[in-house]
């Protein structure tokens, strides 16, 4: 190569380097927060948590970032794992609505702060039902209930037990749809309610670590039950691919009843996505499962201490009460730890206990089992 050509290419490469984005570093005192949740949660953090926390902690600011979905936040978490290996700044301090079991090997590598050892002053207030792994801090809950069209089904006739629900679905073929259990909690917890039904309606039988011994016998009867239901569902066994799509089908009048998240259904009604004539009902023999949304704190984040302070702050009575009043959700702390007024006001509306289905191995087995046992084997052409 001639010298001139060489100089040109080296010069070009050097110029290119200058144009590369500069390495960014996290600012001290700015908590980088990522969420996988929907817009209403981001709004709640922007309008309630952020101003209150920043007012109480001078010099600390929150940088609220919408990670899109779990995969988006997982990409951030994977970046943090990589940063851990190279001892660099992950530019992430807190993940909201994310399962800290991911990415695989993260807990073992010490990616997440173990809250049971973090000495949070409000840690003991957390609802014991809500615990999962000690690296996940539950701070808000929601419950699945049945949303239905009162113009087609009178409130007095709405099913209030599992048996009545099954009888109703079979008597009204094509009028019920639930989403795939892994694509949204409303269908997921409907499936979990069936698993409880098939195992003596006793949620306490299921714990986060007893899948190995119990799983193989607990799930098949539930699959049989759901398979039996399939021909009576919309289009003889159609399953939507998310909470929102189920709500859309209900709003289009394509079905009469769906399982839905309480907060999502309330919000849909208040924004007009679902009509005013939408009824909500909870099963009284055993409620549909609820779930708790968790926070994870990156152990290698630059602002780890501030993030832990924030984690403690969201468990305070002030924020937990706001979760109920502003978000329409349930508190992450036990009901004894929210103000007496709220407890009394919501006593009739919200059951004092939310049955919770454990995650861990169960989740994987339920998702895979449902896809292999329930979703196929339907004769939809008939």
């Amino acid at each position, binding site marked *: *190569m001639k010298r001139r050509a060489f*100089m040109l290419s080296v010069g070009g490469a050097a110029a290119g380097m200058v144009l590369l984005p500069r390495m960014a570093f996290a600012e001290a005192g700015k908590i980088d927060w990522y969420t996988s949740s929907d817009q209403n949660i981001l709004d709640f953090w922007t309008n309630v948590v952020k101003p209150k926390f920043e007012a109480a902690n001078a010099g600390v600011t929150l940088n609220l970032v919408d990670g899109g979905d779990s995969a988006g936040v997982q990409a951030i978490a994977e970046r943090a794992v990589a940063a851990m290996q190279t001892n660099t700044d992950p530019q992430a301090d807190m993940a909201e609505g994310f399962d800290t079991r991911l990415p695989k090997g993260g807990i073992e590598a010490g990616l997440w702060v173990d809250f049971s050892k973090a000495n949070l002053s409000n840690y003991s207030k957390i609802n014991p039902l809500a615990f999962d792994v000690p690296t996940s801090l539950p701070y808000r809950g929601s419950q699945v209930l049945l949303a239905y069209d009162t113009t087609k089904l009178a409130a007095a006739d709405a099913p209030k037990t599992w048996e009545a629900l099954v009888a109703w679905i079979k008597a009204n073929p094509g009028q019920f749809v639930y989403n795939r259990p892994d694509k949204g909690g409303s269908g997921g917890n409907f499936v979990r309610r069936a698993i409880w039904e098939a195992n003596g309606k006793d949620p306490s039988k299921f714990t986060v670590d007893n899948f190995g011994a119990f799983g193989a016998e607990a799930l098949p009867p539930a699959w049989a039950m759901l398979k039996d239901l399939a021909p009576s569902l919309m289009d003889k066994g159609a399953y939507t691919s998310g909470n929102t799509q189920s709500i859309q089908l209900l709003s289009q009048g394509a079905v009469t009843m769906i399982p839905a998240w309480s907060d999502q259904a309330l919000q849909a009604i208040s924004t007009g996505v679902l009509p005013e004539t939408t009824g909500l009902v909870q099963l009284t023999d055993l409620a549909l499962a609820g779930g708790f949304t968790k926070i994870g704190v990156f152990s290698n984040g630059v602002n780890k201490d501030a993030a832990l302070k924030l984690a403690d702050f969201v468990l305070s009575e002030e924020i937990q009460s706001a979760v109920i009043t502003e978000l329409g959700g349930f508190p992450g702390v036990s009901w004894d730890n929210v103000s007496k007024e709220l407890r009394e006001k919501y006593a009739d509306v919200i059951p004092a206990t939310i049955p919770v289905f454990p995650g861990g191995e169960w989740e994987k087995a339920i998702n895979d089992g449902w896809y292999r046992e329930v979703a196929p084997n339907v004769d939809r052409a008939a």
Partner: protein
Amino acid sequence: MSLTPATDIVGTKKSGRPIGLLLVAAPVLLVAWMIIWPIISAIGRTIWLPDEGGTESFSLETYRFFFTDQYSLNNLSVTLWTTGVCALLLVLICLPIALYLRFAKGRLAAYVQGLAIFPMFVPSIILSYAVIRVLGPNGTVDLLLNSVGLPHIRSPYLTPWGPVIGLVWDNIPLTVLILLSGLGNVSNQSIEAARDVGAGRLALLWHIILPRISNSILVAVSFTVLGIFSAFTLPYVLGPAAPEMMGPFMQRTFRDLNDPTSAITQAVITFCFCIVFGLFYVRSVAKNRTT
């Protein structure tokens, strides 16, 4: 650095070569780094598995599982079915549009072209929800049919035809554009010459136009097939729960089942199917350059 007058790089043929190589080096290196290396690493991770003790050894276990597991095979076959049906429908729909645009003139043709290119600017997630609104149960089509007293149709939403409709619509612009560029090779003179000797419309299409654009059809088909085979959003939102297409299946295996090894195995198998169509494309490009 000092810049001396550029007397030494112009003129001679020899010195042009390293510059050409240098220019191509950056993309080649990028491809090697971001595509070739991940492929090698992915294949390595699926055949070099740790056993219970944690020592790694050669094993085809994940592939054996995939090809003996009826559920996985159903997913693969529905993916092949969807891809095949989409490719066929795309050619059948887009060839007439492209022929029309090639030979028609005037304002109407401009509108048709605008309509044909429009799907390119619609994100697939928006398209998915629009399809639910229009073709879903109690959607617009249902309402229109009902209003004139026609019976309720079975909605394609949540059946394998849902993604087919979405994917075909989504891929119309690319196919039309490629076919249109191919039709640019068909000269007006050759068509007029054929007409002069009395060739009918079909004979014109069969003997004059199709031979000239067979390459473009091949390119269009391989491009759309590559996109459709690994499609995610439309099959995810519009397709049935089972069987799933490979895109949603891989994502679910990776994320919900937290099983990267199986997900990568599915990806490698998907890649092997895609590479066949990739080779078609490369071959036709190479053929084009030699002629």
